């Protein structure tokens, strides 16, 4: 749990806010917000809070229920009680056991950049490019390395 000092603003548990909220630094939301929230610091959706909002901040922590898209410049953290129903874009993400996330996520991938499928190890190949072994199942075992076919290796090099 974060300390109060980290957050210059607190939206109380009995507050209901509809509209656009903009914070210069951190904010802690205990009540309900419908609209958009943006901050240059950290936004905490506290436990018990239910927000239907688009959140844009450097750090976003979700301990309550957030329905809407999240754009975190640095990190999004979802606590065990936290639920995010919406799309997430962030540089890093932390999920505690029990956390709920349901939406399209783009983590560690620069906005507008190429996807992470390649992981910097060459061009991404689509599943259709490869040849399934046997009856479509991967042929592999616990002790031996999966042998790439010549075709697969060539595809990887491309």
């Amino acid at each position, binding site marked *: 749990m974060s300390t109060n000092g980290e957050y210059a603003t607190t939206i109380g548990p009995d507050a209901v806010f509809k509209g656009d909220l903009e914070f210069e630094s951190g904010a802690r939301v205990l009540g309900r917000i419908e609209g958009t929230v943006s901050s240059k610091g950290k936004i905490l959706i506290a436990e018990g809070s239910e927000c239907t909002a688009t959140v844009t901040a450097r750090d976003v922590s979700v301990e309550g229920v957030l329905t809407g898209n999240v754009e975190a410049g640095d990190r999004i953290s979802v606590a065990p009680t936290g639920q995010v129903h919406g799309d*997430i874009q962030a540089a*890093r*993400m*932390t*999920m505690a*056991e*029990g*956390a*709920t*996330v*349901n*939406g*399209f*996520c*783009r*983590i*560690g*991938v620069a906005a507008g950049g190429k*996807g*992470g*499928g*390649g*992981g910097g*190890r060459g061009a*991404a*190949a*689509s*599943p259709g*490019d*490869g*040849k*399934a*072994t046997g009856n*479509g*199942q*991967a042929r*592999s*075992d*616990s*002790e031996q*390395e*999966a*042998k*790439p076919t010549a075709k*697969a*290796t060539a*595809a*990887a090099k491309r």
Partner: protein
Amino acid sequence: MIRRRPAGPRPIHCYLCGHGFDVPARAMSTTCPACNKAIQVEDVVVKSYLPVTDLQTCGRISVTARGRVAAKRVRGGGGIDCDGAIEGSIETEGVVVLGPKASWKGPVLRSRHLEIADGARLEGRIEVPRRRDGE
């Protein structure tokens, strides 16, 4: 390196129907008593490029740093450890662990829990915890 399994039966869940039952510790494949389908139960380690249609097992799937899976669907009943790259849908009853240099790109990732190390790259729809059809 020889991997040692604990002696005695181990519990698994069929990746096709979700039925839970025990198999011998050294079993590599079996038939699900509920859906009567042949299923793989061994652990899978991917150390290089592996293009397949479906990569599925009731055991654990590990993708090493040099491993790369390009599949339509990856199902690991015992969970999935990834230090390399996976492209394709991931479905597991267990935990998906993405290491700091791991990347995943796929239509959807469904798991009980997801651990993401700093530096990991993800792109796709995430449903955690996973919901079975009808839930």
